[in-house]
């Protein structure tokens, strides 16, 4: 025996110990992995030996390797072996290894229960200690259940060293095995008064944590904790207790009163920042229960923290301030100076915190000043991230709650224009949408906005000159639209028109060019109008000539949208020119093209339009054939239910209260909102009895005021103007007060008396149209986006000229499936194409399968067959995944395929970040002859109500002997039906839907349909993704749902060869298109 031990010891001397291992790793920096793998081999050898010392050494080394990221789970059993050693030295190492390497799914843990129990009851306190420490890291529900009693006993151990560990670990046991809490709690409570401060603090810790999870069970302990709080001097314990009270006060408000004194004392007296911070935080969190004075004290203390040179205190001070801000913005606002100072801090996280605070601090009074400061920071800011953050914050601050704090919109437009000068910002889009929003909703600002936008257009080269500033060219979109739409306000429309038609414009992104072209036409109309009034008719003709000269550039554009608009407008102008040459006055008619004003409309506004008397929207326009009517009594009843007789009254009854409530709330809101302008005179009447709203003075913009103050950035002058304006107002107000004619404004909220001018007294210079009606519902309807998968099966055939005839078109799996389903072999081909392929595919589709195609090009796309299989799910993203199957039908190897699609405004191919809007996507595979493979492309689609085609090209390299570059054009046809998802619907839900009255109707009639009714239905189901709700004889109701949640309901009736389809949908355009597509399907049979 002795010999064996000696031998083991000698062996050990030759083993690597931990230090050797660490040193070795440091010496093998180049081939660390290799070195470690040899070490692991050694360790495996060592673990096989009987000597526990050798094993412990090996386990120790493994623990180190585990930290370096190596998997040591294979040695779990050896770790248990070392843990069970009777010697403390090894046991310690074993438990350390276990606490580092074991987790809940380590299966050997269940072998350790008895060993741990033995260690817990060991006479040596360090054995027990080590076991408790280890257990705290890897305790599982099983271990917790089995050992809870043992640990509970240890809570009353004679040695405080064990007691405190046992108390602390009880928390972990409670988490894993909640049933243990009830029996253990009395003993835990006892420990709150343990003579040893360590044990006491451990008990406080555990109870605090428990109370945070479920405060109400611990209310009874409040007196005990109160005693502890007033007697303890240990900051660690005090922090815990204060936190506990923070959790208890909401349940027992009386505690607040009692606590405030000791808390205030602590805030005043403590030198420990952590304790001070805890007190302040608790008072802030429980501000409803604490008095106002204590809050002021907190704000003062926070100011001291923020003023401290220690970055940490500054940060925490701002963090706590933002919590006060939520409930008491006033008390924070007085520290505006300090918070603005923090914007200069060198620490970005502090600057961001300060920015957050500013958002909540703005008022009508200080908005301009704050934004001015922020603009200064924008200029100074280093790094685009922070600058972009500033930019979005400025816009957030200004636009929050419907521009509530903006009193002068000229100023805001100038700010937006100034922001466009920012180098390299990503937020051009944000600025653009703000410009559009303000110009549309604030009528009074249009003159000014148009002038500014015209300047922007004129200086467009400054924005687009630098490629890095690409993001900013989005504002040109807004500028062009505003100039076009409100062109009557333009001072020099001719100049703007020329700016819009510069050749340089063709370098802008497609969607912007499209807006340019469209708005150039609007401008053209306006110019014609002004020029025709003059006697000089050549001016008007010159303008037309200018259009005719410049537009062809856009007609050639690669962007479809631009091309289409440009060619359309070009033809129009040419026609106008012809008329002009005959001295016909055309201006009025041209203007009629763009007549009418675009107003912001609430999505549900249509509901408010009363149905004219005598108009029954549900009545037949043309009486349906009598025979079918008599036949289809049953299903028709479903449709008829929506008729006013019985359903309407019930419907309104339910809603009347709700509507009234909403109307009341809205009235209140509008009355409170000085910016609200009434939509129609009739509604004005309604509100007239709420005085005040109408009487808010609207200051006319005095355009004689010079808009450009030399030497000042544009927006600055408004700050000055605003001051003057307010002073004037104040003077007027005083006058009024003297006359004691101060009107009490009902419903305008409480008056805050803070200083000479209160928030409410600042009148706006411009009004905003606010569309507040049922805003939240917009989201539901339109932005609920779905992720869908389209399976676009794009089969193409690449072949050499001569060989083409030898190739037969392969039948696709999908087609086969379809065939089986349809059991209509003859017509299969046609339907298939008519489903998705559009006209072209129809043409090609008529070619018999065996016949060669007349291939004239060297390579040719035979036929884009589109099989949509939408797996629409109610998930985020308006994304559509198009799965394309590429099949190589020639004898050559194809590689380097690049897939590209010309984006439209509505649908865009998603490209990886950093690539341009016209870049193609590399297809991630190559195609050997005869092989097919599938690739997926993601498209974002905004509107689904219209079908559309996207043109695309596929470029690839054909490898025969030498490589040649080839190109293949194709079209992706996104039909409206393809946005529908087959959704089952029960007849009662279906009836309810029709009753709701939200759906618009439409109908279509198919003649000469020569097929059994069930085939007809099956065809609609298959091709157009409907499901049958109910079918009775020759009549059926069908339902489908679009990916954006539109309901589409059909009632299909047949008599002889005539099929009539009555349809209802909440989106008439979508419905029209779906019906057209259904019609097309049947016209081809």
């Amino acid at each position, binding site marked *: 025996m*002795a010999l064996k*031990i000696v031998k083991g010891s000698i062996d050990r001397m030759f083993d690597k110990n*931990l230090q050797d291992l*660490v*040193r070795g790793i440091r010496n093998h920096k180049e081939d660390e992995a290799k070195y470690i793998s040899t070490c692991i081999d050694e360790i495996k050898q060592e673990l096989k030996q009987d000597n526990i*010392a050798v094993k412990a050494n090996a386990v120790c080394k493994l*623990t*180190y390797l585990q*930290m*370096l*990221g190596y*998997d040591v789970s294979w040695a779990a059993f050896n770790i248990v072996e070392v843990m069970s050693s009777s*010697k*403390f*030295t090894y046991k*310690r*190492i074993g438990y*350390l290894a276990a*606490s*580092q390497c074991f*987790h809940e*799914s380590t299966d050997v843990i269940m072998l350790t229960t008895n060993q741990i129990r033995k260690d817990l009851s060991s006479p040596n306190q*360090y054995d027990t*200690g*080590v076991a*408790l*420490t280890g257990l*705290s*890291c*890897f305790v599982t529900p099983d271990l917790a259940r089995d050992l809870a009693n043992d640990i509970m006993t240890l809570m009353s151990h004679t040695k405080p060293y064990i007691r*405190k*560990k046992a108390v*602390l*670990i009880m*928390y*972990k046991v409670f988490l894993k095995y909640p049933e243990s809490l009830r029996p253990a709690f009395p003993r835990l409570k006892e420990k709150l008064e343990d003579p040893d401060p*360590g044990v006491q603090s*451990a008990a406080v*810790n555990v109870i*605090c*944590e428990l109370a*945070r999870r479920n405060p109400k069970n611990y209310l009874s302990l409040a007196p005990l904790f109160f005693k502890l709080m007033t007697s303890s001097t240990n*900051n*660690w314990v005090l*922090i*815990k207790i204060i*936190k506990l009270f923070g959790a208890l006060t909401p349940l027992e408000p009386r505690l607040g009163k009692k606590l405030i004194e000791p808390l205030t004392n602590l805030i005043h007296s403590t030198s420990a920042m*952590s304790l001070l*911070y*805890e007190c302040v*935080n608790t008072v802030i969190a429980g501000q409803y229960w604490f008095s106002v004075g204590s809050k002021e004290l907190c704000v003062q203390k926070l100011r001291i923290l923020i003023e401290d040179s220690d*970055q*940490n205190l*500054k*940060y*925490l001070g701002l963090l706590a301030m933002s919590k006060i801000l939520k409930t008491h913005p006033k008390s924070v606002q007085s520290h505006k100076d300090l918070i603005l100072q923090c914007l200069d801090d*060198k*620490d*970005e*996280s502090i600057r961001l915190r300060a920015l957050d605070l500013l958002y909540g601090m703005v008022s009508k009074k200080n908005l301009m000043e704050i934004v001015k400061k922020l603009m200064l920071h924008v200029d100074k800011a280093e790094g685009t991230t922070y600058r972009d953050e500033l930019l979005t914050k400025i816009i957030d601050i200004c636009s929050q709650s419907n521009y509530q704090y903006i009193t002068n919109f000229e100023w805001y437009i100038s700010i937006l224009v100034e922001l466009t000068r920012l180098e390299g910002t990503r937020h051009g889009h944000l600025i653009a949408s703000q410009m559009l929003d303000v110009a549309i909703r604030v009528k009074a600002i249009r003159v000014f906005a148009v002038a500014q936008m015209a300047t922007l257009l004129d200086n467009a080269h400054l924005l687009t000159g630098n490629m890095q500033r690409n993001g900013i060219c989005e504002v040109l979109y807004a500028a062009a639209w505003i100039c076009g739409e409100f062109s009557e306000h333009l001072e020099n429309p001719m100049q703007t028109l020329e700016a819009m038609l510069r050749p340089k414009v063709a370098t802008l992104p497609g969607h912007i060019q499209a807006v340019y072209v469209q708005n150039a036409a609007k401008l053209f109309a306006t110019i014609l109008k002004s020029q025709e009034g003059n006697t000089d008719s050549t001016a008007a003709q010159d303008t037309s000539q200018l259009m005719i000269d410049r537009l062809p550039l856009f007609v050639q554009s690669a962007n479809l949208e631009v091309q289409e608009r440009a060619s359309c407008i070009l033809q129009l102008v040419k026609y106008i020119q012809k008329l002009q040459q005959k001295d016909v006055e055309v201006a009025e008619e041209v203007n009629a093209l763009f007549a009418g004003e675009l107003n912001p409309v609430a999505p549900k506004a249509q509901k408010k339009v009363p149905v004219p008397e005598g108009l029954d929207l549900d009545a037949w326009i043309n009486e349906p054939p009598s025979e079918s009517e008599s036949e289809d009594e049953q299903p028709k009843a479903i449709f008829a239910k929506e008729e006013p007789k019985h359903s309407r009254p019930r419907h309104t009854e339910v809603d009347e209260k709700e509507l009234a409530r909403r109307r009341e709330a809205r009235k209140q809101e509008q009355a409170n909102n000085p910016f609200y302008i009434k939509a129609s005179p009739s509604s004005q009447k309604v509100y007239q009895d709420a005085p005040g709203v109408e009487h808010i003075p609207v200051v006319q913009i005095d355009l004689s005021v010079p808009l450009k103050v030399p030497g000042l950035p544009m927006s600055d002058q408004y700050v000055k103007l605003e001051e003057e304006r307010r002073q004037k107002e104040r003077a007027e107000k005083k006058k009024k007060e003297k006359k004691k004619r101060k009107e009490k404004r009902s419903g305008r909220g409480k008056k805050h008396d803070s200083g000479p001018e209160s928030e409410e007294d600042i009148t706006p210079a411009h009004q905003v149209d606010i569309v507040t009606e049922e805003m939240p519902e917009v989201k539901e309807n339109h932005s609920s986006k779905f992720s869908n998968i389209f399976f676009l099966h794009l089969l193409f055939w690449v072949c050499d000229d001569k060989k083409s005839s030898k190739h037969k078109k392969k039948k696709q799996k999908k087609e086969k499936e379809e065939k089986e389903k349809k059991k209509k072999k003859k017509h299969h081909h046609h339907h298939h194409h008519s489903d998705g392929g559009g006209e072209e595919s129809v043409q090609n589709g008529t070619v018999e399968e065996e016949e060669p195609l007349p291939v004239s090009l060297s390579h040719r796309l035979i036929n884009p067959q589109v099989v949509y299989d939408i797996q629409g799910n109610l998930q985020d993203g308006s994304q559509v995944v198009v799965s394309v199957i590429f099949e190589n039908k020639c004898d050559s190897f194809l590689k380097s395929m690049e897939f590209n699609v010309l984006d439209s405004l509505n649908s865009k191919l998603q490209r990886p970040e950093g690539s341009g809007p016209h870049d193609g996507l590399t297809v991630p595979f190559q195609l050997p002859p005869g092989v097919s493979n599938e690739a997926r492309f993601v498209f974002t689609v905004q509107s689904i109500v219209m079908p559309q085609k996207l043109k695309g090209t596929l470029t690839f390299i054909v490898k025969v002997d030498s490589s040649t570059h080839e190109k293949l054009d194709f079209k992706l046809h996104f039909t409206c039906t393809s946005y529908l998802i087959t959704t089952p619907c029960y007849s009662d839900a279906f009836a309810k839907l029709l009753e709701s009255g939200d759906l618009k109707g439409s109908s279509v009639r198919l003649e000469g349909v020569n097929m059994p009714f069930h085939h007809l239905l099956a065809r609609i189901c298959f091709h157009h993704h409907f499901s049958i709700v109910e079918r009775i004889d020759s009549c059926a109701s069908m339902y489908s749902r679009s990916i954006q949640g539109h309901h589409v309901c059909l009632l299909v009736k047949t008599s002889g060869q005539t099929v009539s389809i009555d349809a209802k949908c909440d989106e008439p355009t979508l419905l029209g298109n779906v019906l057209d597509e259904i019609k097309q399907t049947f016209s081809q049979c």
Partner: protein
Amino acid sequence: MFFSFMLLFSRQGKLRLQKWYVPLSDKEKKKITRELVQTVLARKPKMCSFLEWRDLKIVYKRYASLYFCCAIEDQDNELITLEIIHRYVELLDKYFGSVCELDIIFNFEKAYFILDEFLLGGEAQETSKKNVLKAIEQADLLQEEKILKVYIN
């Protein structure tokens, strides 16, 4: 207050010590470590010691070439966490006698033992430095006695 985990890593991003008080798989641990080390090292020296990360708050402090980094929950006190970190550094300093990174590398198990006497399950168990060191010394003594015994036998 219970910590979620504590990490020690060098300026080069090498992990020197890790203690997890929440059960996580090795994969998750590695991912979190990598992410945090990168985030913390990317911060400038003058920046404050706190950052919000996922739903946790990270408190870190640099001592010489080592970063000490703790994860606490939303309602926890950042300043007391900094104090705990500091207390641990003081303990290491006392134990090793002006501690340096190499001490922790070569005696990493000792660094763990000290941490385990100071924190248990992520909670400070002993606020007195003296008591912690006493416990460690006695345990060490026990260990050395046993090693001696082995050699004598």
